């Protein structure tokens, strides 16, 4: 939500350049592994964007997004593999079901801060246990096999590249959607709730209603990501959707920068790709990963997106508008400040 200091023209140029790079990537680096891992990063970027809507723009700490990834993934997989439903319908169904499931969280929206986080964490754990134990539905720990490739109408999107482009398309659509939502009446209501709930109420905003909507929208988007995940991996295992995955999505948003849409994407890429890059370090891989996470947290609430913005500003010799430069109390505090001593 921190307003970018860049003039609109620069931002749009940057976005188009990045988009072109991504479109061209699988043709320049056609190695299956590269395309595969970048697709995965994009899928998680979609989930991270959804969490950003909740955390960065509504101030809701949700540590339960993996539940919706799982629900979306398994729904899409079961519906296509067992019932031979076409992918497009499965995809939509996955999102819808995840959205409906999120309605179970509506009573939880009255919780605040850490308590909300713990409740969503609990939700994630419960969903994982269901995925694990209901073997008749999900295959349990044996997993779900033979998930077909996605398809659009008559074309089956076989192969890594086709899959990649599908993921890219959904990612772009998600980004655009959220980009449109934020400056709208709906987006303003969410941000008002995050910045000052009482003032939002006093302005006529029904906080419970809007927070619930935010949860549903985030769940639907995450459900879509889950569907893409299933048809990308062709195999599902409940261990892909533990609460640790929920924490990973949170890490993505935190590292990228809470309150930045681009940051969510950057964070997703970092968290997904960094462990791969660190493979050269063998057994020290995760130790270094942990250390780097800590180091990233030294970047302040703007995260990596903010850092890149600052560097780019330096390089382009743009002077920050004196107003925008200082952001006093980051909304990250508003989320995490434990109001356990008062409601």
């Amino acid at each position, binding site marked *: 939500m921190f307003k970018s200091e860049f003039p609109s023209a620069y931002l749009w140029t940057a976005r188009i350049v990045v988009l072109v790079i991504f479109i061209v990537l699988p043709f320049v680096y056609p190695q299956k592994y590269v395309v595969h891992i970048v697709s995965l990063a994009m899928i998680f970027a979609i989930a991270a964007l959804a969490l950003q809507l909740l955390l960065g723009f509504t101030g809701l700490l949700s540590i339960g997004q993996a539940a919706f990834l799982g629900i979306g993934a398994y729904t899409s997989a079961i519906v296509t593999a067992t019932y031979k439903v076409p992918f497009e319908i499965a995809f939509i169904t996955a999102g819808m079901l995840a959205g409906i499931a999120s309605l179970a969280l509506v009573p*939880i929206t009255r919780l605040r801060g850490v308590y909300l986080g713990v409740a969503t964490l609990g939700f994630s*754990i419960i969903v994982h246990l269901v995925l*694990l134990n209901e073997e008749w539905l999900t295959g349990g720990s044996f997993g779900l096999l033979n998930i077909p490739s996605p398809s659009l109408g008559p074309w089956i999107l076989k192969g890594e590249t086709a899959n990649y482009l599908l993921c890219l398309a959904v990612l772009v659509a998600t980004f655009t959607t959220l980009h449109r939502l934020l400056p709208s009446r709906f987006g303003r209501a969410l941000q008002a709730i995050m910045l000052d709930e009482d003032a939002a109420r006093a302005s006529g905003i029904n906080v419970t209603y809007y927070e619930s909507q935010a949860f549903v929208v985030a769940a639907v988007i995450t459900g879509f990501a889950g569907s893409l995940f299933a048809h990308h991996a062709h195999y599902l295992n409940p261990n892909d959707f533990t609460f640790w995955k929920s924490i990973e999505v949170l890490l993505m948003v935190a590292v990228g920068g809470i309150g930045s849409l681009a940051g969510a994407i950057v964070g997703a890429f970092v968290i997904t790709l960094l462990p791969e890059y660190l493979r050269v370090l063998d057994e020290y891989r995760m130790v270094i990963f942990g250390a780097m996470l800590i180091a990233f947290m*030294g970047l302040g609430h703007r995260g990596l997106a903010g850092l890149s913005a600052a560097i780019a500003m330096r390089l382009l010799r743009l002077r920050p508008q004196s107003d925008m430069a200082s952001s006093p109390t980051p909304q990250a*505090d508003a989320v*995490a400040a434990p109001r356990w001593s008062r409601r």
Partner: protein
Amino acid sequence: MSGSQFIELFVGGLAIGCIYSLIALGFTMIIRATGVLHFAQGEVVMLGAMFGVTAHHLLPLPFIALLVVGMVFGGLAAVAIELGVYRTLRVRRVPLMNIIIATVGMSILLQNTGQLVWGSEPIAYPKLFATDVYSIGSARVAPQLVWIIVLGILVMVLLQLFLAFTRTGRAMQAAAQSPETAQLMGINLTRITAYTYGIGGVLGGGAGVLLGSLFYASFSMGFLPAIKAFVAATLGGLGSIGGAMAGGILFGLIETFAAISISTSYKDAVGMILLILILLAWPEGLAGLFRQGR
């Protein structure tokens, strides 16, 4: 359920509940003082267990000594992390959320370091008792469990005494309630925060030794119990010492009893569902229930 069965389950549940309570106390004290959800608390538990069992391999020590070793090293580790890492971040004035995320990073770092140092194989705690079984009426309980309960409660009582009667303990209480006023009274917040983490580490390290003696020690042992303890602390009301103790014991009992009545595979869910239900009724946990006039 027969009477002896009930006693056996009760003792088992109480034992694991005491362990959860010790970990939960650490969580609650840290969050009370700093607002930080210490995700690495589970790794402090692990370090306590590891140092304990390592000490035993070096010298054949009685169980109490292992417990002390675990507590001391747990405390030292926690203080080192706080002074070395968290304080550095605080000095840079990063938002609270960043510190919380940093504890996640610390958790990853410590877990994997633990794996490097002690290997991937679980390490068994030595058989620590001569008799195999105590008998309570017709019930048979492992002495381990009884000792865990006794020692766990002892530690909690000592903690209460420390907080109520020592200067440092009272300073910690003051700082938790109002940092600014505490500073005006001459309380050194850096020192107090370090003490808070230290005590959290002592409690966690102790819990680690107890947990290890109950099952085994391994690099990943701390994570799940810590999550459960955190849920228990929330159940009891974050920031409430009594709530953490009650929450931990309650969680342990419910988990143990649920495992036989509901299918074992869903026993973790029971705690979560209970948590969500309690939070819906009392958004501040059980402690909120007992707080008057809010």
